């Protein structure tokens, strides 16, 4: 049942990502289940969620398989350390900062991987604008995605 919920939540993220647009920028919601998996269940499950969701996203983009897989795996893995109590104590503000930072990091990894192994996917100014917008859209989710170590 729990796995079905995870699949449904991830599917919803993909659906919303394809439907919503804020000032011409589509959100990057798929990072949220990966972040939450790392936050709640540790680095191994975070990594695994990142690999699966990243592979799914790569498959849908009809281009290089690997950039999202790698970026999401890194995000899932690092989110476990960032806010699970190993390095920091979870607070709502830290959650917001972590989600925003990891969203930007995800974009940077994808952009770098695509630029190196495929072709430059967008102008640098577009990358900066998109990353900042996606970070701002995702940031409030950091308040609600609560670590199990939270007070």
């Amino acid at each position, binding site marked *: 049942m729990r796995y079905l919920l995870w699949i449904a939540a991830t599917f919803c993220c993909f659906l919303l990502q*394809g439907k919503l647009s804020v000032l011409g920028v589509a959100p990057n919601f798929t990072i949220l289940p990966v972040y939450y998996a790392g936050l709640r269940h540790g*680095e191994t499950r975070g990594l695994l969620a990142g690999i699966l969701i990243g592979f799914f996203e790569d498959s*849908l*983009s009809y281009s*290089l*398989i*690997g*950039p999202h897989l790698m970026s999401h795996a890194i995000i899932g893995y690092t989110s476990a350390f960032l806010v699970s109590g190993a390095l920091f104590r979870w607070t709502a503000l830290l959650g917001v900062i972590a989600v925003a930072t990891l969203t930007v990091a995800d974009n940077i990894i994808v952009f770098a991987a695509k630029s190196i192994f495929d*072709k430059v*996917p967008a102008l640098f100014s577009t990358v900066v604008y998109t990353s900042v917008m996606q970070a701002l859209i995702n940031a409030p989710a950091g308040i609600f995605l609560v670590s199990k170590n939270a007070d």
Partner: protein
Amino acid sequence: MSRKKALLPIVVIISFILMTYQSKKGHFGSPAQISSLLDSAHKTIASLTGSLSQPFKRLALREEENTRLRQRVDELLLERDRYLDAVLENKRLKELLKLQESSKTTVAAARVVARGTGHWEHTLVLDKGLKDGVAKDMTVITPMGLAGKIISVTDSFSRMLLLSDINFSAAVRVRETRKEGVLAGTGTRTCMLKYVPYEEEIKTGDVIATSGLDSLFVPGVPVGYVSKVDNKGLGGNFQYIELTPFQDSSRIEEVLVIR
């Protein structure tokens, strides 16, 4: 190093191997079932929200629409009279020159069901696919002008690459002066007109249309107008020309796929 800590470097190394392999040998094909599942969900949501919001929209817009349409009918009647002579003259001249009408064939009228999931790709998912006759590299237009081209097709859905995508390019020409160039997407609202030498005179406001010289796009489809010309060396050996497409990529709802 503990087993857990070794996992991340292993995943990163595998990703690098995977991407290096694809950069050498070409991309792996994407499993059509995965995207079809998501595209079907998009279509269901689109039709659901459409059927729910349609009656309310209709009510709100009816009065305004009626007034506007009445004005428009009057304008069009006047306009029609003015153009009738021109059309007849045009027809006569075409017959004289034995020119044939351009053979634009409409393949399908499609509805946009979603945007592509890639962060940087400017793509849209259309609700028509192989079953409706849509094929890769077909031209996609709207009443405003060129919108993009088909880049992948499944049985029931297809994906179009928008003009604004950085990977988009098309052979175009200035409608009046017939000067040629290459249109390229920039990832923003505006596009670039490339490879126009300095000696060619391009003015702001010039209308650009597809030339068909790339054997991909149907010739004569309006693309946009020149919004900025810089011939002071910003574009290297060629002029730096910015073009604003007639069709705003963020407002596309219905399209025509033609060949």
